[in-house]
């Protein structure tokens, strides 16, 4: 039944798209479209949630007479799909709520409204699909609609370029998946997932499929080195769409990966996990390092998506390793960690993008160097954004910490793994994970500190306005969710149990029964964590301190100029900027990773001109992976283009040569 309801919802969203075209561009259209999609996605989310909890009822599919003629469109909800549907529609509902306020400021709504519901529908369909064709159609349709949203502000050349790169990478990924499914389906084309499950590919084929899946799904999820489009495309879109792309669409990509590798591909080989783990570790660290070098707020967030995808892949890789070696419980732990992080990241990344969007609306600025002091003008936005920052930095007592803690626990179980490659790889990956966590904290100190704290650097920042109530409502809801998931992780872990049961055969021990709502991954003697208690402790001791000091000591307060060692400078230009904040870290990591160079240009003696310090960063991945390809295509195009300008006689020569060649083939035919 769940499937049918879900399909009704999707149909409604799809119907909303053409309606939006005729509604035009007015505020009425905005309200109708976003309001409707809010209601529908909320319904879809609730539906999926119910499905997740009584999932025996849900593992029922329908087949519509659409899509491939002799196959039809198979649609199905199992636990995995239900979980991802929850993620997708939670994000969708929140984005719609946010957009109810944010969308009013959109300058060209008629380029956003029609595609927005279609985009939501496409993401739902990807998760619902249960045959290769439907899956790929929805997958590419998702790319297409999001592409249209990315180039909504098409008059900006940068956005067009972003959209172009995005569409190319998306199609590249889709074609890779297409090949993967071609292998899975075999020559006589059993495209239905059930049929694929029934047949087990040979080791070699399975390996090929794995690689194709890593590439195909990875190019959508943004794993290094396939991430290049992500920091271009995500910021280019309107902020609520950026939130969807970063918070939700990358998760849909993860879903595709999990579906293929854990579900369709059959029992894993021991070395698969090494590929996934290596990709995950590198992605995590590279992503956060890129993020640290940015000073465009939305681009920074986009790069952080890359990092979190890496963390998720680490969890999945561990799960794969345990599964391959028959350690089901550990596999369940790692998988739960990964999926829990999927949920968490979708929550706080949406929250952060909403915050960035509100800032963008209030100041018209995305560049942190032009912001500052917003906490005075937009206190509420600042507060929720801060919550998001703490959560994404994996700090207790919020949710980001819990999922990374679970991942660490999984890593601590891995010495039992037999294979030597893993014995060396896993600790290294653990180190990379720890490094990325620490760097993430640094990065968000920078993000929040530079844009919200300090003194305003531009009039725009100085005259910012608090954002509207709808946007705030969405952000507060997500912030609350961050806290709940942080202090009551047991509930979420239990909710993920059915998924783990489906994919690795068992699940983590039941958590909700434990005293004080603790979570215990394996056994209490090993490790346990109780976010609730820690939270209560911190709050109690903090308020105790406040009470004691204000009562017993002084509570007097004077305002004065900043002390600054006696040299206060009124000009806000003397504050630390984003790039100067990142300078120590750039010195430590950047010189090798980005070939970062600082060039100080001093004026000649006596000249009154200012000295300049410029920083050069090179994106080596772009230089060595993408530029050559583009270069080759350009070169080949130029070379071949000569053929457009030949004379008729030369064209005849071509024909003649072809003829002679073919005749020679015949002459030499056995």
């Amino acid at each position, binding site marked *: 039944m769940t499937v049918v309801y879900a399909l009704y919802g999707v149909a409604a969203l799809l119907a909303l798209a053409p309606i939006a075209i005729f509604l035009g561009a007015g505020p009425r259209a905005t309200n109708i479209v976003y309001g409707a999609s809010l209601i529908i996605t909320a319904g879809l989310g609730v539906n999926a949630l119910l499905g997740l909890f009584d999932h025996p009822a849900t593992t029922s599919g329908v087949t519509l007479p659409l899509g491939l003629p002799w196959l039809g469109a198979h649609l199905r909800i199992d636990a995995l799909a239900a979980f991802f549907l929850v993620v997708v529609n939670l994000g969708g509902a929140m984005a719609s709520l946010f957009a109810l306020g944010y969308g009013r400021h959109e300058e060209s709504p008629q380029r956003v409204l029609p595609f927005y519901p279609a985009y939501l529908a496409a993401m739902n369909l990807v998760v619902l699909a249960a045959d290769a064709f439907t899956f790929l159609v929805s997958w590419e349709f998702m790319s297409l609609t999001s592409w249209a949203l990315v180039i909504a502000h098409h008059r900006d050349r940068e956005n067009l370029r972003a959209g172009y790169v995005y569409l190319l990478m998306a199609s590249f990924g889709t074609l890779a998946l297409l090949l993967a499914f071609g292998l899975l389906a075999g020559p006589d084309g059993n495209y239905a997932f059930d049929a694929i499950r029934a047949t087990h590919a040979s080791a070699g084929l399975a390996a090929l499929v794995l690689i194709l899946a890593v590439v195909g799904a990875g190019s959508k999820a943004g794993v290094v080195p396939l991430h290049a489009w992500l920091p271009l495309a995500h910021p280019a879109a309107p902020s609520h769409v950026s939130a969807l792309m970063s918070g939700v669409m990358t998760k849909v990509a993860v879903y595709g990966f999990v579906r293929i590798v854990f579900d369709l591909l059959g029992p894993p080989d021991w070395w698969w996990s090494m590929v996934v783990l290596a990709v995950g570790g590198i992605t995590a660290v590279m992503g956060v390092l890129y993020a640290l070098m940015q000073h465009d707020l939305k681009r920074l967030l986009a790069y952080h998506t890359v990092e979190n995808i890496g963390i998720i892949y680490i969890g999945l890789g561990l799960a794969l390793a345990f599964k391959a070696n028959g350690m089901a419980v550990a596999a369940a732990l790692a998988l739960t960690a990964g999926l829990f992080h999927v949920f968490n990241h979708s929550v706080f990344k949406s929250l952060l993008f909403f915050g960035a969007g509100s800032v963008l609306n209030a100041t018209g600025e995305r560049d942190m160097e032009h912001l500052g002091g917003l906490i005075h003008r937009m206190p509420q936005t600042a507060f929720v954004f801060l919550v998001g920052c703490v959560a994404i930095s994996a700090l207790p007592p919020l949710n980001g910490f819990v999922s990374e803690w679970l991942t660490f626990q999984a890593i601590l179980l891995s010495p039992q793994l037999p294979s030597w490659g893993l014995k060396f790889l896993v600790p290294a990956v653990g180190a990379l994970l720890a490094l990325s966590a620490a760097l993430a904290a640094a990065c968000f100190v920078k993000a929040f500190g530079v844009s919200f704290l300090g003194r305003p650097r531009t009039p725009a920042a100085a005259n910012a306005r608090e954002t509207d109530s709808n946007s705030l409502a969405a952000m507060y809801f997500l912030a609350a969710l961050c806290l709940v998931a942080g202090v009551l992780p047991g509930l979420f872990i239990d909710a993920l149990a059915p998924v783990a049961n489906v994919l690795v055969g068992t699940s983590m021990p039941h958590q909700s029964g434990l005293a004080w709502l603790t979570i215990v991954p394996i056994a209490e003697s090993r490790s346990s964590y109780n976010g609730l208690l820690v939270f209560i402790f911190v709050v109690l001791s903090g308020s105790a301190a406040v009470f004691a000091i204000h009562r017993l000591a002084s509570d007097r307060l004077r305002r004065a100029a900043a002390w600054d060692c006696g040299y206060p400078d009124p000009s806000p230009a003397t504050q630390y900027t984003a790039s100067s904040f990142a300078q120590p870290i750039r010195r430590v990591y950047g010189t090798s990773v980005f070939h970062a160079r600082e060039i100080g240009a001093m004026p000649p003696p006596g000249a009154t001109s200012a000295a300049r310090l410029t920083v050069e960063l090179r994106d080596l991945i772009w230089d060595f992976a993408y530029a050559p390809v583009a270069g080759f295509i350009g070169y080949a195009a130029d070379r071949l*283009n000569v053929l457009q*300008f030949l004379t008729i*006689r030369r064209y005849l020569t071509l024909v003649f040569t072809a003829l002679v060649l073919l005749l020679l083939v015949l002459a030499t035919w056995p």
Partner: protein
Amino acid sequence: MHGLTFDIAHLLAGSLVLVSFMQLYQDRLYALLNIFALHALVLAASVAWQAFIQDAPHLYVTAGIALIFKAIVIPIVLHRIIVRLGIHREIETVVGVGPAMLLGMGLVALSMVVMLRVTAEADPLAREDLAFALAVVLLGLLMMVTRRNAVSQVIGFMSLENGLVLAATGAKGMPLVVEISVAFSVLIAFIVIGIFLFRIRERFDTVDVQALDRFRGERR
């Protein structure tokens, strides 16, 4: 009886190939024209002979067309065009005569190899004829691609088509032969008129890239 008919047919077909070689050898237009007239003449003869031995009267029509149209009308027209365009003493081969001849040899050999793989019960006359016809076709094409001059390219095309007619007439009892030869004559007429009307001076390939750039915006 049969032996003799075969030999004459072979003789004519072979001499057609020979004449094609003579065409390749020429690099003066007038000479080329004359040789082509000869080419058409030989074709007419062999077609007539085929008509005789197959006693297929309609082939005589084809022979007639070949004789009147190709051996007489076209050469005269082309002659006038050459005079009109004043290009009669051009040396306009792309590759030298020597290499062209060598290539021609190779092509003839190729066509022999390809055709003689045909099993013999397809009757020998047809087989040999086809080999020769293929050779003539290839040589005509070679002529087209080794000459710059529109006129000589037309000639190349026509000798190619002679090869086709040779094959068609060699194919015993093939229907539509006459229609096809007529259709081709129309085609050639078009080409000649084209050269005449559009003042295609030295060659087809006055494809002035600059002009293309200007007009088509295909600047590189």
